[in-house]
């Protein structure tokens, strides 16, 4: 049993290397761009390329496709260290969804065209799954791709497609055979985001993040952009979930926030006393520290299973479940500690912690809904982990 992130001198050296790199290259502005999801500005893009240049985005990929080999352990160390510094894996859709699917199922041509550029941090993908009729029930999607000569003609509407407005490519799930067996109706495509016929309309979330409605009007996509085989998209999407587990929710991210709250409490007086001396404040912050650590320990279990070569069957879902629910409590409890001051947005006078708490309250609301709602995760976990019946 070992709860250390690194267990050999080589792993520790790698972790230190990543840490040193981040100390130099990761600025507050880049952190802001990462967390706001409004699209990466030039600083964050440049940061992507620098990480890519270190070979860190291609960890675990074959060198012939621009990867740097290396094991899962190193990838996990990288992700954890980025989270510790409050940075993000640039473009998880490219790295953990599109990339692995192309690697495993794409044509040689497709692999050569996309993987090296993903590994270098040069291109970004946006996820194109959800539609107005298809949220938790993805199979209810209606966007249609019809074969015509050397192309597929695609028509339909996607919604809650985040990142489309700045990504190079749309990782698109479409129905190519709606009459087929349930699991063989969907195909995956790599679509140029600036292809003629695509219209993007912004939707602004409570969290201040931009997501989009995307309209496809007779968009012509070359057949070479079909990922793997036609009608096998659903299987590829399920397979991709194995990798997505790495990008799920980094609990490490919570600790610096709690730390900032502790420091705030040490410096702030209210009603005649330092917040740090108020037993209620201490109790709340302690509870946050307890819950963050519990989430961390469950995350470590999943990571340990991954490193061991097992598939964390239900653990990844649980991490997202508890991480997102904790994140909401973090927002509410922090609001309680900051009182009126927690209401203040970033650009207001008197806003403590750069308005972070108000933003956390708002941006944590979608987290229990998207990427697997808490309810769906509970349904699925009941079946997978406990063998409870579907009906």
């Amino acid at each position, binding site marked *: *049993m*070992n*709860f*250390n*992130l*690194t*267990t050999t001198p080589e792993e*520790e050296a790698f*972790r*230190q290397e990543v840490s040193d790199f981040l100390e130099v290259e990761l600025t507050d502005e880049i952190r802001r761009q990462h967390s706001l999801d409004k699209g990466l500005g030039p600083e964050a893009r440049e940061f992507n390329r620098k990480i890519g240049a270190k070979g860190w985005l291609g960890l675990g990929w074959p060198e012939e496709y621009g990867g740097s080999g290396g094991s899962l352990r190193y990838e*996990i160390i990288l992700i*954890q260290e980025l989270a*510790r510094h409050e940075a993000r894996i640039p473009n998880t859709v490219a790295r953990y969804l599109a990339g692995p699917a192309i690697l495993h199922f794409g044509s040689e041509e497709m692999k050569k065209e996309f993987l090296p550029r993903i590994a270098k941090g040069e291109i970004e993908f946006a996820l194109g799954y959800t539609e107005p009729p298809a949220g938790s029930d993805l199979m209810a999607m209606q966007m249609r791709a019809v074969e015509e000569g050397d192309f597929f003609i695609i028509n339909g509407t996607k919604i809650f497609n985040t990142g489309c407005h700045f990504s190079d490519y749309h990782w698109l799930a479409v129905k190519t055979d709606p009459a087929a067996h349930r699991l063989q109706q969907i195909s995956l495509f790599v679509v140029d985001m600036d292809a003629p016929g695509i219209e993007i309309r912004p939707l602004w979330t409570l969290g201040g993040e931009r997501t989009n409605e995307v309209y496809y009007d007779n968009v012509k996509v070359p057949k070479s952009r079909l990922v793997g085989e036609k009608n096998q998209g659903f299987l590829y999407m399920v397979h991709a979930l194995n990798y997505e587990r790495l990008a799920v929710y980094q609990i*490490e991210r919570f*600790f*610096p926030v*709690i*730390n900032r*709250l*502790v420091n705030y*409490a040490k410096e702030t007086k209210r009603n005649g006393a330092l917040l*740090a001396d108020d*037993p209620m404040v*201490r*109790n709340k*912050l*302690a*509870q946050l*520290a*307890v*819950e*963050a*650590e*519990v*989430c*961390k*320990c*469950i995350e*470590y*279990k999943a990571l*340990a299973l991954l*490193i*061991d070569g097992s598939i964390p069957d239900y*653990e990844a879902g*649980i991490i997202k*479940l*508890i991480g997102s629910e904790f994140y909401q409590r973090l927002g509410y409890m922090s609001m309680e500690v900051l009182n009126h001051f927690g209401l203040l947005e970033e650009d207001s006078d008197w806003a403590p912690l750069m308005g972070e708490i108000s933003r956390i309250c708002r941006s944590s609301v979608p987290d229990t809904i998207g990427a697997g709602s808490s*309810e769906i995760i*509970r*349904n699925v*976990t*009941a*079946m997978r*982990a*406990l*063998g*409870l*019946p*579907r*009906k």
Partner: protein
Amino acid sequence: MDIRLSEEQEMLRNSARRFLEKNCPSSLVREMVEDEMGYTEELWQGMAELGWIGLIIPEEYGGVGMGFLELTVLMEEMGRVMLPGPFFSTAVLGGLAFLQAGSASQKKEYLPGIAGGQMKVTLALNEAESIYDPGSMAVSAVEEGEGFVLNGTKLFVPDAHVADTILCAARTDQGIEDGITLFVVDGKDPSIRTKLLKTIAGDKQFEVVFHEVRVPKENVLGQPGQGWPPIKTVLQKSAVLKCAEMIGGGQRILEMTAAYAKEREQFGRKIGAFQAIQHHCVNMLVDLEGCRWVAYKAAWMIHEGMPYEKQASIAKAWCNQAYRRVVALAHQVLGGVGYIEEHDLPLYFRRARAAEAAFGDADYHRKIVADQIFTHGAIDRIQQGNIQ
């Protein structure tokens, strides 16, 4: 990162499970609630022969010389079957106290008897106005001649009626943490009167009245006036082991509940098909997973000799909250059958209440966590690189 138990730990878990399944059915647990002693000599000797009582006592003192993680694994199995009797008092409270504070000759004198099962021990700490709080302890120890005279009443002393030795924390000087001395007291001294406290858990907790109890000065455990630090260590480690007990109970409860959900039919289907039931069960699973890994991490840190104070308190604070929910949700899923006393779940419920209070409730431990994060910051230190 590795969550696997070692081969030795796995073997211990498996053999403990088999032994306890066979020798500690819930009917025994019920019997022992009514029984005056609260344990059977047969089972006690059985555990002694397996080396369990001396599991973490070094071999030179007759123990098995295993580590804290192994004891944690064993404790989980004991919690699974709600093992009654003075194991925790003797092996944990007594064993850890002697290991922590005893001089070489005291260890030589007392540990073999503990390890061999001949000597039962308990720890008398709490009082009417003092719960795990050295500053307010009032049971006094006054120096007289070649020893001390103890006076006062301790409460919630586990298994005092069968203890051959009672470790009593008493005030020797005025002051906060200083001024407490830990004494090795003969449990059969006629000046000590014990009276059973009837608790919700049916566990054997006692009022212990010390009236002019004379204790020779060799029976000071550790240094005079320095009793609190070793007691604090014992409390922290005991808190983690109590978490292990709760995890063991929680694991069995989860299994019982999932099994029931797959078997019980209403409205033409198994109730496990209803989402409300599914969500209750998953919430139990998630709470239990949290308990397991946060407590085992604390146990690992203790086992490896790392600073563990914050983690131990995080574990107990969490397990208290989470185990409460696990038991409560089990009751919801099991419905009527689960609150009839014949069923095992009420036994777990009762013992869960006692487990919450033991060695610090959530508020107590959150205070410690707060002190830690306000002193050292809230960043998880392990993740800053290997702790040396």
